[in-house]
């Protein structure tokens, strides 16, 4: 039995990969984000926290890009290149963990609301709609400002304000899955709530979760940088805090375009990569979308 299941899963994965490979933009996005993640992971082998320290800036202040400092230096002579590299660790970490938190909440709420259709489901959807209406950036700013800025707080603030879209998506999918005959068969054979939701619903919504997680990481990275720019952030160097620094030190008026351009381009590249990969996943997993576009 398990052998059959394994073979079928393997076939499904290989078919999925064949479909995904046809989405050229998605593959490009996947490559870029893999490169970004690997670079962030290996950063400690080459550089350390020291590159972000104000006192250890080795170069001249406000130096334009040169051979020694390919992306120039900032107001205290730190290399923008190394800071962007080191900062990618915080940006990506917060992006991934916030998206994970958001997806987990969304998944639990979505599946529960779709499975228990009585007052539990109705109440959960009310709560979801309520969170959906709240302006998420403003709410996240309030939460982060009150809880004090730490990496954990920022992750919580982003996760808590962004889960409702996932919850709605997953609920709709749960409803669709649960109306199929094999769920009824399973229930007739004595399956309980736990069995139905974890063994039948979850595997069916998992691909969608993956696609929406990918898009969620993209928006979490943007939100993190926005929060950092607006002054509520963990005190670690991220792309957002670098841009905040560039604004505080008057980089626009100093004409230090590299200080603004490079961290922003890093955000843009990574976010675009996640977006393209996520949209490609969606297109492969959702045949209706595939037909439309």
């Amino acid at each position: 039995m398990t052998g059959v299941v394994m073979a079928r899963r393997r076939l499904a994965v290989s078919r999925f990969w064949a479909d995904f490979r046809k989405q050229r933009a998605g593959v490009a996005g996947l490559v870029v984000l893999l490169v970004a993640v690997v670079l962030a992971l290996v950063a400690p082998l080459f550089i350390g926290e020291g590159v972000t320290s104000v006192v250890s800036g080795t170069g001249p202040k406000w130096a334009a890009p040169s051979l020694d400092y390919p992306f120039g230096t900032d107001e205290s002579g730190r290399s923008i290149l190394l800071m962007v590299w080191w900062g990618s660790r915080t940006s990506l970490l917060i992006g991934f963990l916030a998206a994970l938190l958001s997806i987990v909440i969304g998944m639990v709420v979505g599946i529960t609301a779709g499975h228990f259709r009585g007052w539990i489901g109705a109440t959960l959807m009310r709560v979801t709609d309520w969170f959906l209406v709240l302006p998420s950036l403003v709410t996240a700013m309030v939460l982060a400002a009150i809880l004090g800025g730490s990496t954990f707080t920022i992750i919580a603030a982003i996760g808590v304000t962004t889960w409702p879209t996932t919850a709605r998506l997953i609920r709709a999918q749960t409803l669709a899955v649960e109306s199929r005959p094999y769920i009824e068969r399973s229930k007739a054979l004595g399956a309980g709530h736990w069995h139905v939701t974890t063994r039948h619903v979850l595997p069916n919504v998992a691909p969608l979760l993956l696609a929406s997680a990918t898009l969620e990481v993209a928006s979490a990275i943007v939100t993190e940088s926005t929060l950092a720019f607006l002054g509520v952030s963990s005190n670690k160097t991220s792309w957002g805090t670098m841009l905040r620094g560039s604004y505080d030190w008057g980089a626009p008026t100093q004409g230090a375009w590299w200080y603004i351009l490079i961290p922003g381009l890093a955000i843009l590249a990574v976010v675009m990569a996640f977006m393209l990969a996520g949209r490609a996943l969606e297109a492969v997993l959702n045949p209706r979308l595939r037909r439309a576009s």
Partner: protein
Amino acid sequence: MTALPDAAEPAVQAAGPAEETPSSRGMLRYALSKAGGALFSIAMVVIGTFFVFRLLPGDPVRNLAQGRNMTPEQLDLERHRLGLDQSLINQFFDFVGDTLRLDLGTSYEYKRPVLDLIGERLGPTLLLAGTGLVIAVSLGLWQGIHAGWRHGSRFDRFSTGTSLVLWSVPTFWLGLLLMMVFGVGIGPIPGLLPFRGSESIDAPDGFAYVLDVAAHMVLPCLTLVAVVYAQYLLVMRSSLLEEVSQDYITVARAKGLRDDDVRRRHAVPNALLPTVTLVFMRIGFVVGGAVTVETIFTWPGLGQLFYEAVSVPDFTLMQGTFLLITVSVIVMNTLADVVYHMIDPRVRSA
């Protein structure tokens, strides 16, 4: 439905006049239930705000004292002023009563009532966000219609590509770039536009004053539009794509109507409604954009006031502005919902 004289939705049209009274009564019931829901949401926001601002870790007074020299007596005085020395229940009822009376407290930083501060800042925000929204909606819908109608064309690929890029760009970064290029000037390009505040210090009178404010508004408005319009474009495009494959479009074409007429009189009216609702449903997104844009360009609006409150931090001011922003977003959402229900028979019959 005058824009759809024939093919579209014949069933609903035929049933229309006969159901006149029950449907309008249903309409009223729908509006009332939506209003009830909105009131409930607002009540939840007020309660939620109270607990978030009081129960979460971090003593507001100690946070306030951070980086300032304050004696324990001063801290106690501050606690008393904020009513923090009373029991939680008393605090809660005081808070609800004050909020209902629109007494949002006194700002710590400005030493003035929060409501007055909000009143001063409301105008500039409405001016900026309103102008930005109108431009973003018209531009986004227009481009979305044309991209969706000729999907796969070069214009479509260009539009979708740009909007994906704009969607991925953090608002504040785009603002910084625009500020540097058009405000400060870079290389041979001189700075063309003002990028601080909403008017010059020696602002002229009369028509020249209007021009002055307009000049100050160009960059913030451009930033807001660029970030917001992308999603309108994408929503409009996909909404139109859903309509393009419908039977009534084929019928309209078969009748020999010109392509432009099929688009303008048949496809667009049907695709427009869900899009317009989505536009207003996502008004919270515009609010977030406005906070960021106002901060960068020091536009003296509500968003900047909220930003100041967060960065001081001035908790009374933060609470007041947060309440106002959230409640207005809820109200606008509800309005959009009711209006949508009123003008689109398809939702009503569903």
